[in-house]
């Protein structure tokens, strides 16, 4: 294992921000994995740390294939993590909206540029990603549909679902999108936690990455089979919006099968406790997303269902 500083930024009042990478094997740039780019992505950093533990073992046992190099960057934005902020603390910009970056530009553009310089040229790229939306998601792997996306590759992770996303304008400045523009086949892996650590879910993510590496011949270690991945388009996932505002009470959980008209949850008046709205499933399917904050506004996505 080699530990190296991928990008360094001087600060007026703190130690330098040293974005650190851990590389394994050598030769062909095969896989790069990136963890936390936001200050609340503790789970994403944790997954990378556990992956590094596994890769260390594999390297000791000689189970990293010849002429294959793997790079893991567990945490890009630990500056924000250390002070409890989500985005770059000085100007509240999101590093994952700054790619491919610009070396002569603003601070977070420079960070994105420096990190992206270290990430270019890999055959595969994996980002441990988190959502803007507050809630619990069913763990899955995702690809951005850039026109030359081979979504079948997602099967090699053996996760339950592989989701294809049609990019929106704001997606064009994410790492995942730009990796693909630079001809790296890019995936995002979502676990079911962000600012807390879910050990079981993190372990599943590590296993999925190990499975992918084994399938691609990057490692020679044998990994047990996973799910027969179902590939779906994100646009086909049905959303259920709240019809009232108040206190949100979920009565189901992600991964549950629900039948049409099953009660998924309710919204109660926050002052007098009266039920304002009962949330029912419009069709049968698997609960893919569940809102997880006690207070809810009107017209907020409270559940997403993958139709049966």
């Amino acid at each position: 294992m080699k530990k190296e500083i991928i990008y360094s930024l001087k600060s007026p009042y703190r130690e330098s921000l040293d974005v650190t990478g851990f590389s394994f094997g050598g030769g062909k740039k095969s896989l790069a994995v990136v963890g936390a780019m936001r200050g609340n992505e503790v789970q994403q950093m944790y997954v990378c740390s556990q992956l590094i533990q596994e890769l260390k073992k594999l390297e000791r046992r000689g189970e990293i294939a010849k002429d294959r190099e793997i790079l893991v960057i567990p945490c890009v934005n630990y500056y924000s993590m250390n002070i409890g902020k989500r985005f770059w603390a000085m100007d509240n910009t999101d590093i994952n909206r700054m790619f491919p970056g610009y070396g002569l530009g603003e601070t977070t553009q420079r960070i994105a540029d420096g990190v992206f310089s270290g990430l270019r040229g890999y055959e595969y790229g994996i980002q441990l990603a988190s959502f803007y939306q507050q809630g619990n998601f069913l763990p899955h792997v995702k690809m951005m549909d850039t026109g030359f996306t081979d979504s079948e590759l997602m099967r090699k992770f053996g996760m339950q679902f592989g989701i294809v996303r049609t990019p929106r304008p704001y997606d064009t400045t994410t790492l995942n999108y730009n990796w693909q523009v630079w001809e790296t086949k890019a995936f995002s892996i979502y676990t079911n936690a962000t600012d807390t650590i879910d050990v079981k879910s993190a372990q599943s993510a590590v296993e999925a990455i190990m499975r992918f590496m084994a399938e691609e011949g990057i490692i020679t270690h044998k990994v047990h089979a996973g799910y027969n991945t179902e590939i779906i388009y994100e646009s086909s996932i049905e959303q259920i919006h709240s019809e009232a505002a108040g206190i949100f009470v979920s009565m189901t959980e992600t991964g549950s099968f629900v039948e049409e008209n099953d009660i998924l949850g309710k919204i109660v008046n926050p002052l007098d406790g009266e039920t304002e709205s009962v949330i029912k499933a419009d069709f049968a399917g698997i609960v893919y997303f569940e809102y997880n904050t006690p207070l809810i506004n009107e017209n907020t996505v409270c559940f997403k269902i993958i139709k049966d």
Partner: protein
Amino acid sequence: MVKTVTEAALAVNEKLIIRKNRIKNGSGKKRLSIVTGIHGDELEGQYLAYMVGNYLTENIEYLDGTVDIYPALNPMGIDSITRGIPQFDLDMNRIFPGSKDGTMMEKICAAIIDDIDGSDICVDVHASNIFLKELPQIRISVPTAETLIPYAKMLNVDLIWVHESATVLESTLAHSLNTRGTKTLVVEMGVGMRITKEYGVQLFNGILNLMKKTGMWKGEAEEAREPVISLNREVGFVNSDAAGIFVPCAEFGDHVKKGDHIGDVLDPLTGRVAAEISAVCDGMIFTLREYPIVYGGSLLARILMPSGAEKGADGE
């Protein structure tokens, strides 16, 4: 008359309400919309909204048409000194045109667009953020320049900056409205979290002039100043390569030569100059850093270069 554009229920005993003030007189069919407050930390437009509303109401007999003033598209942001939408960590100016079937903010954005749509002209007033101070300017993307520059020249700004359009900006209010055929001009002026009274007055005079030129105003209006237009000119960006505190020695609006000393980045711990900052080109400083703490990459100034002939004479 104050009207509700759209509303949505918040979790506890409150509604998020977007309001506008409609001022109407005469038989003229023209409609001008003045919108501001998409970013909660940009307050320059608040004073303009007050001035226009107050003056038109006091002098209603000179108005021939409809003026809609939307002072706060992001009221929760303004209320909480939050640039984006509080609670969502989203920049409201990246979710237009919204969606009628979408989430709360997407629905609100769709309703705002529908309400403004059909205006003859829309002026979307922004301040800079808290870091930079901007000379009053209108920003126009290249594809809309031919249509919008004649109107921009009426607005009494110092600069019209025609820039390349980025994909990410397709989600702005202005892009969405221009795509629908509602001519929308984006004004940037001053600095975040402050009101610069002189700029408010300057743009107010521009609004009256635009109304006069388009037949909506029968009263007096001052002629607009001649703006500098960035077409065929380059913009030089001065970014810091050092960390520390930036102390400028050039003034906002100064004309500088390439290499001129415009400020320093200082290290308060060691008492040393971390970097001397020089102009990257000849031209006029139209953006200057206001917030002193800088990292490598922090924007310190923007300089509008002279037109091609003058640039050539400088040997570049």
